[in-house]
């Protein structure tokens, strides 16, 4: 028996460790300063430490970099970070290998010989930038700046603002491609259609139940370390249940209380059926019902609660668990039981990722997931699925008078192929260039992006990028000689992320923003120059100075302009401490319930839109008159969302779920007038995957995945990571293998409609029969010795480990295969997301 005093103490401790359900814990967790010390194991000398930020993956965890004699020797997590609490993943630890890689690009290189032939001439920066500035200036002065196409992979926060908003904005090109559609852009579009902005934070610290569709959060996630350890903690310390739907036993599935091996592409059916259970069994009553006030369920925005409930019941009536069992192979009783558990254990957190969304029906899977979370009252609440919170930096915007940008319409795919590709269709850029109907760039520049390797249809990508008649001049900005750099005309050497400046702003798991910076731990190697510095230089050469001379200056000015950061000492504080959050900040939940004061919506230019219930500012929406604005209406005015003021619900006006990319209302929209007008179903609706509908008896589903020790395409040169994971035999269930006479380790041929690859079979019970899985990361043919066995043109022989790449030795594991050779570039018809998981293949023993 515990006496009262002990009991009270227990309560206090529990509050600090997260044992009390429903309490908001992040306030209690202020970490003592403990990091920043490291010692050499050979000399015992203290190592120099630099607080900085990882950039192995997009999570961008604050870290501490240790150096000895100006060489990076070690990286650790930043213990003062409220996002990571000082832990760091394998990839982050492996960052040491990025900076010390023996196959880096060390100086600007100009192609001699044929494109892709591998013959290079070392050139000076002056020579390289004079040529580049000359070409860009010519395009700009001819009034065709859009013929300069820029496309990026890894570019966020300060680099994004400096390069995209300031430099490219000042230059005048809007032909800016990204890579989001090959990540999870489709998930973000579904968010923009439902709750306005994009990104969901899973509040594991406060949750009581976690339901996961297709996220491998324990190995790979865009906010990996801020979330994964918190989920471990919730499970280990509070007994939180984790249920994972996945076609294979990922490490996340393996650590789950329950793994449900769902048929590929049918997560949507399961989620719809769970909505059916919730509505049919009245499990929405309580938090779900209360939340419905902010939800739009019908075409009309002013439906009553009763009307909303009736509409939801009617909509989901056909999606019974029995129906979903037919689609997904998951027993109806399992669907029903999990739906009940999820709906009755409040708060509960609904996770989704590429397993659910990188499909033909991915947009609907994510909208259905949003629906399930909404009708159980698990949206933007402690313990639920929350709207993302990140640091809001101020920064210099560069020259005031920027030209109106011009762009080639090649970044969203052919017109109509996807209804609302708000995150573009990067996997279609090569096809669009080949087609030529919408123009072609004269100068194509990629920044930390490998169009060859990262997209599907590798063979076509190579063919197009090699063709000088399609792409006359290709500039590749890269720390490494990867598969795309090998096809460039000019390579500009970029430092690794351990040698450069940035401010950072990634999403906080505790709903409190964290400000943090990246700073160089060592001088950039060789002649490498931060692209942020390079664009300042280029701008000068083109006679359009940006107002600052370097990325460092941009970061410093941003620190001085950002009130929270300036208040504690600005740039100097950040250089010393690396991270900052305002002490005592309250976690941000329920932001949609904020009421808008009358002064804001009874104001000059603000009008009420009857159709949507939105207050919007017609002047900000660039209308000429109020009558013109009223005639056109909020929903049909171009980019009217930028003029959104608030949402009237009943007799009050709320901030609501503020639109961020589309002209949606301020409701949480389960009924999308936008999709309806585009000819799609307004409410989340079952969509069968065409390829899966016509599968023959010998066909298999092929899916892809990522592992915990590699980044998609930018880590295979990290020797310590690749030593652990360098080979990716296809996972296949022994049942499927037996039928084809395939044994473990056999060489197999995998054939899709667009090509075939050879790999090995890994017979495992850890995958659903009928499915094979081949990971990303492997099968490089450039990028350096650890990745591919090929030395880069500027590679050095100073690392003795280049002689010890045991996995590439005869008879050993080998370097694996890249699945993208046989995956078509194909979009989700609603949001344009690349459909990584829909490929149908046949396999045979070689």
């Amino acid at each position, binding site marked *: 028996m515990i006496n009262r005093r002990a009991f009270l*103490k*227990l309560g206090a*401790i*529990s509050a*600090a*460790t997260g044992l009390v359900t429903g309490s908001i814990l992040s306030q209690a967790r202020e970490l*003592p300063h403990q*990091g920043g*010390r490291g*010692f*050499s*194991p050979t000399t*015992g000398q203290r190592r120099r430490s630099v607080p900085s930020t990882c950039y192995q993956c997009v999570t961008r965890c604050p870290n501490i970099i240790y150096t000895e004699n100006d060489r990076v*020797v*070690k*990286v*650790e*997590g930043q*213990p003062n970070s409220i996002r990571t609490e*000082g*832990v*760091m*993943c*394998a990839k*982050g*630890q*492996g960052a040491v290998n990025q900076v010390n890689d023996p196959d880096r690009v060390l100086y600007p290189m100009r192609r001699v010989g044929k494109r892709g032939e591998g013959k290079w001439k070392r050139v000076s920066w002056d020579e390289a930038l004079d040529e580049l500035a000359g070409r860009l200036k010519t395009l700009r002065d001819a009034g065709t700046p859009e013929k300069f196409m820029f496309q990026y992979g890894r570019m966020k926060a300060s680099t994004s603002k400096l390069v995209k908003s300031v430099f490219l904005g000042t230059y005048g090109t809007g032909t800016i491609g990204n890579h989001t559609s090959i990540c999870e852009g489709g998930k973000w579009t579904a968010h923009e259609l439902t709750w306005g902005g994009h990104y969901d934070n899973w509040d594991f610290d406060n949750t009581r139940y976690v339901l996961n569709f297709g996220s491998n959060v*324990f*190995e790979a996630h865009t906010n990996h*370390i801020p979330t*994964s*350890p918190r989920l*471990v*903690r919730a499970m*280990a*310390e509070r007994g939180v249940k984790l249920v994972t739907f996945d076609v294979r*036993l990922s*490490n*996340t599935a*393996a650590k789950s209380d329950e793994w449900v*091996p769902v048929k590929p592409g049918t997560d949507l059916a399961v989620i719809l059926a769970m909505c059916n259970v919730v509505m049919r069994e009245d499990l929405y009553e309580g938090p779900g019902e209360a939340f419905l006030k902010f939800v739009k369920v019908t075409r009309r925005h002013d439906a009553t609660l009763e009307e909303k409930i009736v509409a939801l019941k009617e909509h989901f009536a056909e999606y019974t668990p029995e129906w979903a069992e037919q689609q997904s192979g998951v027993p109806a009783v399992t669907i029903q039981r999990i739906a009940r558990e999820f709906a009755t254990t409040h708060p509960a957190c609904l996770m989704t990722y590429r397993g659910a969304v990188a499909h033909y029906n991915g947009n609907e899977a994510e909208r259905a997931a949003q629906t399930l979370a909404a009708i159980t009252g698990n949206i933007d609440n402690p313990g639920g699925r929350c709207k993302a919170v990140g640091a809001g930096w101020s920064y210099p915007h560069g020259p005031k008078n920027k030209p109106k940008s011009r762009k080639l319409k090649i970044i969203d795919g052919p017109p109509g192929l996807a209804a609302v590709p708000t995150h573009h269709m990067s996997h279609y850029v090569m096809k669009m260039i080949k087609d030529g109907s919408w123009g072609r760039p004269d100068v194509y520049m990629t920044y930390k992006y490998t169009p060859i390797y990262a997209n599907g249809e590798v063979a076509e990508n190579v063919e197009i990028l090699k063709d000088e008649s399609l792409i006359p001049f290709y500039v590749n900005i890269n720390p490494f000689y990867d598969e795309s750099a090998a096809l460039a005309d000019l390579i500009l050497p970029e430092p690794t992320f351990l040698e450069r400046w940035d401010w950072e702003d990634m999403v906080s798991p505790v709903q409190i923003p964290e400000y943090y910076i990246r700073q160089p731990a060592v001088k950039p190697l060789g002649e490498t120059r931060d692209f942020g510095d390079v664009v300042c230089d280029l701008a000068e050469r083109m006679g359009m100075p940006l107002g600052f001379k370097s990325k460092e200056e941009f970061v410093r000015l941003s620190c001085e302009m950002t009130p929270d950061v300036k208040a504690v000492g600005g740039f100097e504080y950040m250089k010393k401490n690396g991270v900052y959050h305002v002490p005592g900040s309250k976690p941000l939940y329920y932001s949609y319930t904020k009421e808008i004061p009358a002064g804001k919506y009874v104001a000059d230019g603000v009008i009420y839109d009857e159709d949507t219930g939105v207050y919007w500012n017609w002047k900000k929406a660039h209308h000429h008159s109020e009558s013109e604005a009223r005639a056109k209406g909020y929903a049909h005015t171009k980019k009217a969302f930028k003029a959104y003021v608030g949402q009237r619900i009943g007799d009050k006006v709320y901030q609501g779920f503020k639109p961020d990319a589309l002209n949606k209302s301020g409701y949480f929209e389960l009924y999308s007038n936008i999709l309806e007008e585009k000819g799609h179903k307004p409410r989340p609706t079952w969509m069968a995957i065409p390829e899966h509908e016509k599968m023959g008896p010998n066909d298999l589903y092929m899916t892809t995945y990522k592992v*915990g*020790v590699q980044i998609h395409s930018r880590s295979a040169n990290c*020797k*310590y*990571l690749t*030593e*652990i*994971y360098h080979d990716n035999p296809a996972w296949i*269930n022994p*049942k499927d293998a037996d039928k084809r006479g395939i044994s473990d380790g056999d060489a197999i041929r995998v054939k899709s409609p667009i090509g075939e690859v050879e790999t090995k079979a890994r017979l495992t*019970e*850890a*995958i*659903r029969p009928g499915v094979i899985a081949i990971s990303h990361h492997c099968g490089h043919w450039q990028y350096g010795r650890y990745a591919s066995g090929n030395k880069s043109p500027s590679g050095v022989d100073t690392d*003795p*480990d280049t002689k*010890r790449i*045991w*996995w590439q030795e005869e008879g050993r594991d080998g370097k694996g295969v890249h699945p993208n050779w046989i995956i078509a570039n194909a979009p989700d018809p609603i949001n344009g997301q690349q459909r990584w998981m829909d490929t149908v293949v046949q396999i045979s023993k070689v």
Partner: protein
Amino acid sequence: MASDSSKKTLSRRQFLKVGAAAATTAATLPATVASATTKQSIHYAMVIDTRRCIGCHACSVACKTEFEVPLGESRSWVEYVEKGIFPNVRRSFLPRLCNHCDEPDCVDVCPTGATYKIASNGIVDITKDICIGCGYCIQACPYGARFLNPETGTADKCNFCLHRVSEGLVPSCVNTCQGRARIFGDINDPDSEISRVLATNAVSVLRPEMGTKPNVFYIDADHTDERDAERYNTYVRIDTHRRQKRRV
């Protein structure tokens, strides 16, 4: 498997302290442990709570970088055990390192005394200057924890990050562990976190039949090996994630 000193039961008050200790980050050692490194009574050990391990390999890579371990060798690694028949299949994770045994075979066979157990703290270490690289210890270790370092020509293995521990820091693998699955400390100190964890959990060690008395204790470890596939007529696959593919 806990040592005698940690077997005594905890009072309620101590139990509450366990919670408090667990709440703090494991980035540094408690002051008591750090200052005690000069005393003679320390017995360092590690508990690995596999329930909190997600097989992420952060420990392995942290170790590789801390010591610049040459490719092909490892001081610290994580094994995966996959077993069962679909859909009743599981994968568990077993982090591995030197066990710093109380009765280490490696010490017994060393002809020069290079491999020894540090009397003041129990860590098994190697004096590189007098190691002749004969490899006896590598053969003798029942855990495959040792290797011949191609750079130095001497035996090598985990030493619980002695250079960090003597500065009051936890070993590098403990520092980075995502799930906070690793608890390092002095099991002679009944108030240490590790002593409390050992006293309140069932633990096991690897290959206890070897009689080496390991000091790495596991909570909920899966000891399945390949022989179990035949024994129980099921599927078992073990991945060592190192050059040495066979689990030792």
